[in-house]
């Protein structure tokens, strides 16, 4: 397959060009010369034929008059000896052939094909099938009287053969000239190709990054030596490797090479186009190297800055991302990627509708569009549903603009404020509890006095009525219910911390055991087993034994209620954490547990899941208040941590269970050793 023209080597192209040029000159020249020669020869042949025929006609006058056939025959035979004369013959005035030069008879068809016209010679082109012949018919006129005709045939084919030979000769010499021309052209092309190849190798070195080699030849003298120039600050000063018109400072070189035409340096050092190219190449390489160095330095700075920026972005726990004008992610930080559970690369290019759940993505996307459209920042808090607990994010969207002020994207930062929200809710709850406590305390305080009067009078009246009477029974009922009311009032006062507390040093375990022993019998009737696992170090705390006992009884009572009639196991555990200066108690049951929505409300006053009349909803809230008054913390975990009951025989009960955990501070330094870390599982 013939290679494409552009793929041919330079040397081949030059040789082809030479051949083409010589061919383009030689072939038309040969053709035109051949044509001109053919036309000229044809014209010459016609003239010659006319002269020959007229000469013959004149010469044969005498022998024709004397009918000297021998002389006539000699004359035509003489003509026939001429190379290009095909024939000659003579007709008398009647048109009879007198003599002819043919051998083997006279061709009869030849007689009438041509004749003189108006007494003058006539030329006719004959085609014999083998060649073309110019037939000349000259009249033999003697004193105005036609005596016959002299006919001569000149071969045009032979005449044209001469022209053909001429053309062939031109073609031959042209071919020879072409061959001769190819030798210097090959040498020339080789020289040029070598220089171009050197340039190519140089270019390859440049591509490889080696910008130091020089392609152009060094000058014998630098421009500063030629011009005796002492401007040492000029870049071209003393430089033999590069030409000053390419490297000199602008104020030295003026308008560039065009203005250097008359400079002796330019005249001395100027080379041909390839040398110009090589020298320009060198300058380009140097310039490229300078620019590359600058580029590398800039790249290093940029890389460091980018790394810093990335570090900042990735280190921040905030969810940071940059979106384009179509709300597609351009970049995200590590926290954002982790939040979505995808890699940064997977997120870039997507939109919120694709990476967020269906019930969140469209809203996020719409918010983005609003900011992009309005061009104003926005911030809002959103609540996202996540497994376990809802998550609150504070999202700030800032539009990003170009120099013209056109919005080209937005920067979005989101901060997890779930904990803050919880704190807010707790604060609100606390404030609410405080208000309720104050209200309840005030009410209880006001009710306490009349209630005491009611109780007192009820007890007094009992002394005045006979025993066994209906009135006494009613008074006893009044007294009993009044005492219930006083208990409620006392609880309310305790909840509002309006009740007096008497804190002393007390044994934590003893407090627990007292409460257990009080309820054990009653709970056993409900088929509830109480297991105690108390710290053997007998931790001492500073507290109100009665109130704490009330807390323990509340918790045990709650557990009993949770287990209900089907019974179960109740585990009470205590542990001392010396390093944390606290003692912890666990009250665990194997009941059905507390629903998640109720977990945050169980410590609220008057919150109860029991039927009306069976609970006041004050037990846990009072317990909360007592523990809080002791500087401790009470919290609930439901279901109970896995393995919590492993140490017990739970009769195959697989209920989730609930654990109340109470941390109370120690008020003195314990010297006893113990576990370093309180851990539920280890416990």
């Amino acid at each position, binding site marked *: 397959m013939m290679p494409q023209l552009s793929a041919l080597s330079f040397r081949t192209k030059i040789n082809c060009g030479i051949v083409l040029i010589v061919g383009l000159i030689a072939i*038309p020249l040969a053709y035109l010369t051949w044509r001109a020669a053919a036309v000229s020869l044809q014209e010459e042949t016609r003239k010659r034929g006319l002269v020959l025929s007229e000469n013959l006609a004149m010469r044969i006058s*005498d022998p024709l008059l*004397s*009918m000297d056939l021998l002389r006539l025959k000699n004359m035509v035979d003489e003509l026939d000896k001429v190379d290009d004369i095909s024939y000659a013959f003579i007709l008398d005035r009647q048109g009879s052939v007198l003599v002819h030069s043919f051998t083997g008879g006279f061709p009869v*068809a030849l007689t009438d094909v041509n004749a003189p016209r108006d007494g003058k010679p006539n030329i006719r*082109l004959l085609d014999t099938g083998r060649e073309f012949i110019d037939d000349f018919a000259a009249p033999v006129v003697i*004193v105005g009287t036609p005596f016959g005709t002299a006919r001569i045939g000149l071969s045009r084919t032979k005449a044209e053969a001469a022209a053909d030979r001429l053309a062939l000769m031109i073609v031959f010499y042209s071919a020879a000239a072409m061959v001769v021309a190819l030798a210097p052209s090959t040498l020339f092309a080789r020289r040029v190709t070598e220089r171009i190849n050197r340039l190519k190798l140089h270019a390859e070195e440049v591509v490889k990054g080696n910008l130091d080699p020089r392609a152009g030849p060094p000058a014998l003298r630098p421009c500063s030596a030629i011009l005796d120039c002492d401007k040492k600050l000029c870049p071209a000063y003393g430089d033999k490797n590069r030409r000053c018109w390419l490297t000199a400072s602008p104020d030295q070189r003026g308008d560039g090479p065009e203005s250097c035409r008359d400079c002796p340096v330019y005249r001395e050092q100027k080379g041909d186009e390839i040398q110009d190219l090589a020298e320009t190449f060198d300058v380009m390489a140097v310039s490229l190297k300078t620019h590359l160095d600058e580029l590398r330095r800039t790249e290093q700075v940029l890389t460091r800055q980018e790394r810093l920026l990335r570090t900042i972005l990735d280190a921040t726990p905030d969810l940071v991302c940059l979106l384009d004008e179509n709300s597609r992610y351009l970049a995200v930080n590590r926290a954002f990627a982790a939040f979505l559970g995808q890699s940064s690369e997977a997120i870039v290019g997507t939109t919120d509708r694709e990476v967020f759940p269906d019930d969140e993505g469209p809203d996020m996307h719409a918010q983005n569009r609003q900011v992009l459209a309005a061009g104003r920042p926005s911030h809002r808090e959103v609540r996202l549903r996540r497994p376990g607990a809802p998550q609150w994010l504070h999202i700030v969207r800032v539009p990003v603009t170009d120099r013209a002020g056109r919005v080209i994207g937005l920067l979005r930062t989101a901060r997890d404020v779930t904990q803050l929200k919880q704190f807010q809710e707790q604060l609100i709850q606390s404030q609410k509890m405080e208000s309720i406590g104050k209200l309840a305390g005030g009410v209880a305080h006001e009710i306490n006095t009349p209630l005491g009067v009611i109780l007192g009078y009820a007890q007094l009246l009992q002394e005045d009525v006979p025993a066994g009477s209906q009135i006494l029974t009613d008074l006893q009922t009044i007294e009993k219910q009044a005492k219930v009311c006083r208990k409620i009032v006392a609880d309310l006062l305790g909840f509002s911390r309006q009740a007096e507390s008497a804190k002393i040093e007390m044994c934590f375990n003893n407090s627990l055991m007292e409460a257990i022993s009080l309820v054990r019998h009653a709970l056993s009737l409900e088929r509830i087993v109480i297991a105690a696992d108390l710290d053997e170090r007998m931790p001492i705390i500073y507290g109100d034994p009665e109130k704490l006992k009330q807390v323990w009884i509340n918790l045990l009572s709650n557990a009993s209620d949770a287990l209900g009639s089907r019974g179960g196991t109740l585990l009470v555990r205590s542990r001392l954490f010396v390093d944390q200066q606290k003692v912890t108690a666990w009250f665990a049951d194997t009941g059905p547990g507390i629903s998640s929505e109720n977990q945050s409300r169980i410590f609220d006053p008057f919150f109860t899941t029991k039927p009306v009349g069976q609970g006041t909803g004050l037990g846990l809230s009072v317990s909360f208040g007592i523990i809080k008054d002791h500087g401790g913390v009470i919290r609930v975990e439901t279901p109970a941590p896995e393995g919590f009951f492993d140490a017990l025989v739970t009769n195959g009960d697989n209920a989730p269970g609930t654990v109340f955990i109470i941390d109370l501070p120690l008020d003195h330094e314990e010297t006893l050793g113990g576990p370093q870390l309180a851990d539920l599982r280890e416990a």
Partner: protein
Amino acid sequence: MRRREFLLTGLLLPFFAGCGRDEDAVRVDLSKRQEPTMRQQPKAVSYAYLPQYAHTVSYERHRLLLDYLSRATGLTLRQVFPDTFEEHVRMVERGEIDISFSNPFAYIRMAASGARAFARIIEPSGKPDFKSQIICRRDNTALASLADCRGKRWMAVDQSSAGGYIYALGEFYDNGIRRSDFAEITFAPGPGGKQEKVVLAVFAGICDVGSVRDGALDILRDRIDLGQIRVLAESKAYPGWVYCARQGFPPETTARIAQAFFSLNFERPDDAVILTTAGMRGIIPAVDADYASVRRLADKLGLDTTVGGDE
């Protein structure tokens, strides 16, 4: 049209223009060959003019006279053109020429074979006789008289030529100069036009002296500068050219022709044109005895006047 197409057209036009032949060729089949056969000439009275000049000149001179003869006698005449004097004489002897117009010396040779004179012409000079002129170049100072011709190169017209050779030879003889006294004697080459060739040979310096009949110089008057030719001497006058009929030619026919000749009158413009063209002023009767002086000259010079003499 775009520039490229113009260029292409300009480049290719000469090629297209040069293609093909610019004339139609006539197709000729040269394979059918046949040897030509001459047509038989119709019966006619053959008339010949002694080849004193080229045939065309002879034809031109006598064309009108023959036309006149044909008209006047009702005979069909055909002019024939012997190449040499000798051939002319032989043809008369062989009967191939019926009417011969020749010089006196040729006549006495033909008379030997039975030909008889019946008319003679009046020369343009108005005399019925003529002479030979001996010529040389005007710048040839070595030739002042006939005696100076000894040792010179002499070109004559023909051995049979009366005015061109024999009369001059008689003149040299009478002046004591023999043929052996010349460095060489040559005769004009080739057939026809011999008188002119002698003049041209003298003019060109090929020979020192030449001999022509009187009146010959006038033929070349318009072709060469006759001022360069000098007439060195003239011979005695001898009877002019003569018409004779071959032996056996019907006398009545000869008489009809003679009568027609004699009827020509130079005073008549038409006849004058005929006679002037033929180089004569008139034709008068003649008999064989009129040429006795010529026979004597031949005898004097030792020339053979019999049929089949020297060639």
